[in-house]
C-alpha cells in the first residue's frame, strides 16, 4: 500500500521537525506511482501531485505523526477534498414527474442502476418512481428493465421498440404524468462518447424532458479513458452527477478521482453488486482509502 511504500521512503529519516524538499520529492514519486496503479488519469495525477507538493512543503511534522504518516495524511485529505467533502443529494426539486436520465458507455451498468435508483427512491425517499426503458437497440434491453421492474413491483413504461428513444421518452413522460408518478428514471442505450449521432440523440432526449439529473453511469474499473468519456458526456449534455458501478470488485477506483477532477461533477452513488438493493451513497473517504491501497 502507499502507506507502506512511504514508510520505506522515510525509514532512514528520524527525528525530523519538518519535511524537506528531498524527502517530499521521494515521497511524491511513490504517490504518483500509487495513483497511476490505481488507474487515476495521468494528467490528473500530475495536477494532484503538484497540489500535494504545495501542501507538503514546509509542513510541520506533527509530533504524533511520522513523516510518512504526514504525507499520507495530506494525500488522503486532498483525495477527499477533490472527490467532494459532502455527499450530494439527488436534485428532485421540480414539478412531478421529476426526470432522472441515465447515460454512459456500453455495459457500464445503466439498466441495473435504473432499478437500484427506483428502489432507492421508493424505499428510502418514499417516492413513487416510474421506470422508462428507452434502449430500443440492444436485444432484450426493454425486457431486462421490465423484468427488474416487475421483481421490484415498480411500474414501468411499455416501450414500443419501433419508436425512437425520443418518442419513447415523450410518451413515457406523458404516461407518468397521467399515472401520477413523481419521478421518472430513464434508462438509455449504451453509446460511445465519440458517436455524434447517438450523443445527439441524448441531446434531443434532454431537450424533450428537461431532466433534473443527468447521471453518468461509469464502471469503477475504467482506466485512463475515464477522463475522455466523462469529459465528453459532460461537455455534450451537462452532467449533474456520476454513479460509479461495480465497486464491489477489487478495482482501486482511480476513475472516481479522474471523473471528479475533469468534470467537477459529484459522484452521487456507487453500485455495490448486481442486486437492486446494492446501491450506496458515495463516501469519498472510503474511496480515498481504496485508491491509497
Amino acid at each position, binding site marked *: 500500500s502507499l502507506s507502506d511504500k512511504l514508510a520505506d521512503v522515510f525509514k532512514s529519516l528520524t527525528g525530523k521537525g519538518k519535511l524537506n524538499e528531498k524527502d517530499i520529492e521521494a515521497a511524491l514519486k511513490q504517490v504518483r*506511482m500509487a495513483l*497511476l*496503479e*490505481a*488507474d487515476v*488519469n*495521468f494528467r490528473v495525477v500530475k495536477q494532484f501531485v503538484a497540489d500535494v507538493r504545495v501542501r507538503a512543503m514546509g509542513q510541520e511534522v506533527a509530533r504524533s505523526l511520522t513523516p510518512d504518516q504526514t504525507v499520507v495524511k495530506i494525500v488522503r485529505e486532498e483525495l477527499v477534498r477533490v472527490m467532494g467533502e459532502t455527499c450530494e443529494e439527488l436534485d428532485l426539486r421540480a414539478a412531478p414527474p421529476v426526470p432522472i436520465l441515465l447515460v454512459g*458507455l*456500453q*455495459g*457500464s*451498468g445503466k439498466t441495473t442502476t435504473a432499478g437500484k435508483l427506483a428502489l432507492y427512491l421508493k424505499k428510502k425517499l418514499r417516492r413513487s418512481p416510474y421506470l422508462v426503458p428507452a434502449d430500443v*437497440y*440492444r*436485444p*432484450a*434491453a426493454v*425486457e*431486462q*428493465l*421490465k*423484468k*427488474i421492474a416487475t*421483481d421490484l413491483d415498480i411500474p414501468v413504461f411499455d416501450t414500443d421498440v419501433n419508436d425512437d428513444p425520443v418518442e419513447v421518452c415523450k410518451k413515457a413522460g406523458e404516461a407518468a404524468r397521467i399515472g401520477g408518478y413523481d419521478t421518472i428514471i430513464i434508462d438509455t442505450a449504451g453509446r*460511445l*462518447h*465519440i458517436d455524434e449521432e447517438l450523443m445527439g440523440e441524448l441531446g434531443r432526449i434532454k431537450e424533450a424532458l428537461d431532466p433534473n439529473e443527468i447521471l453518468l453511469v461509469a*464502471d469503477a*474499473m*475504467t*482506466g*485512463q*479513458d475515464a477522463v*475522455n*468519456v466523462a469529459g465528453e458526456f459532460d461537455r455534450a449534455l451537462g452532467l449533474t452527477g456520476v454513479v460509479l458501478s*461495480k465497486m*464491489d*470488485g*477489487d*478495482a*482501486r477506483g*482511480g*476513475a472516481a478521482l479522474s471523473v471528479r477532477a475533469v468534470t467537477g461533477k459529484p459522484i452521487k452513488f456507487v453500485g455495490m453488486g*448486481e442486486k437492486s438493493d446494492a446501491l450506496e451513497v458515495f463516501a469519498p473517504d472510503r474511496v480515498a482509502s481504496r485508491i491509497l491501497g
Partner: protein
Amino acid sequence: LFGKPVVDEETLEALEEVLLTADIGVATSMKLVEEVAERVRRKELTDPEVLRVHLKTRIAEILIEDEGHLDLGPKRPYVVLVVGVNGVGKTTTIGKIAAQFTARGDKVVIGAADTFRAAAIEQLAIWGERVGAQVIKHEHGSDPAAVTFDTLEAAKARGADLVLIDTAGRLHTKTNLMEEMKKIRRVAGKAIEGAPHEVMLVLDSTTGQNAISQAKTFNETITVDSIVLTKLDGTAKGGVIVGICDELKIPVKFIGIGEQVDDLRPFNAAEFVEALFS
C-alpha cells in the same frame, strides 16, 4: 513527441506518458522505457524515429496473436466456454463468432448458461435467431451447469461443429461465482471428453489495471486459453493486454470493434501497436 532531432529526458518522459495513458500500467511502462533508456545511454539509440520503431517492435513482440481464428480441429463439436466480468461483451461476442461460422456453413449450438441476469436468455436467443445458431436454454434461475450439460448433449445429437457457452458476468473476487464457473467447466468435461476445448476470456478495453487481476484470477481458476478484447471502437487503447500477454502468455484471438454482428476482427499485433501510438 517524436518531432525532435535528438533523444533526451523529455523524449523519454513523453514516451512514458504515451504508454501510461494507453493503460499499459506503471510496471510494464517503466520496464519498456528503461529498456529503451539503456540503449540510449549506450548510444545505440540516438534518433527519436528509430526509438519509436524500436519500442513498437518491442511491444509487438510481447503481444501474442493467434492467427485470429478459431480452428475447430478434427473432433467435433469444438466447445468454447466464454467467461468474464460483468458487461464486457460476452453475449455479443458469442453472437459475432457464431455468425462467422454459420456463414461458412458450420452448425453452431449456443448454450444459454447465464441463468441469473434479467433477460440474459432472451438477449442470447435473439442473437441465435439472427445468426442461425440453435440456442439451448432452461428456465431463468436454473443451474448453469445443467444448461451446459444439456447444450453439449444436444450438440452431439445434432452433429454440431461448434458450441459456444455463454456464462453470467462474474467479478473475479466473488469466490462462489468462481466456484460455479469451475463446476460449469467440470460438467462440460463430463458431457464431452476434453470439453471445453477452449476457455475464452472477454476483456473490456476501457478497463484499467484491474484487467490484469481479472486475467490472473480467471486463469488460476479454470485456465484461460484465449482472450477477446472488446470495445476498441472507443477511445480506450486496451494497453492492459501488453502486461497480460507478457505475464500470462495468453493469446488474443479477436477484438470487438462495435455492437453489430460483423464487428469482430482477428487480433493483429502490428495494427494494435500502431493504434497505441496514434
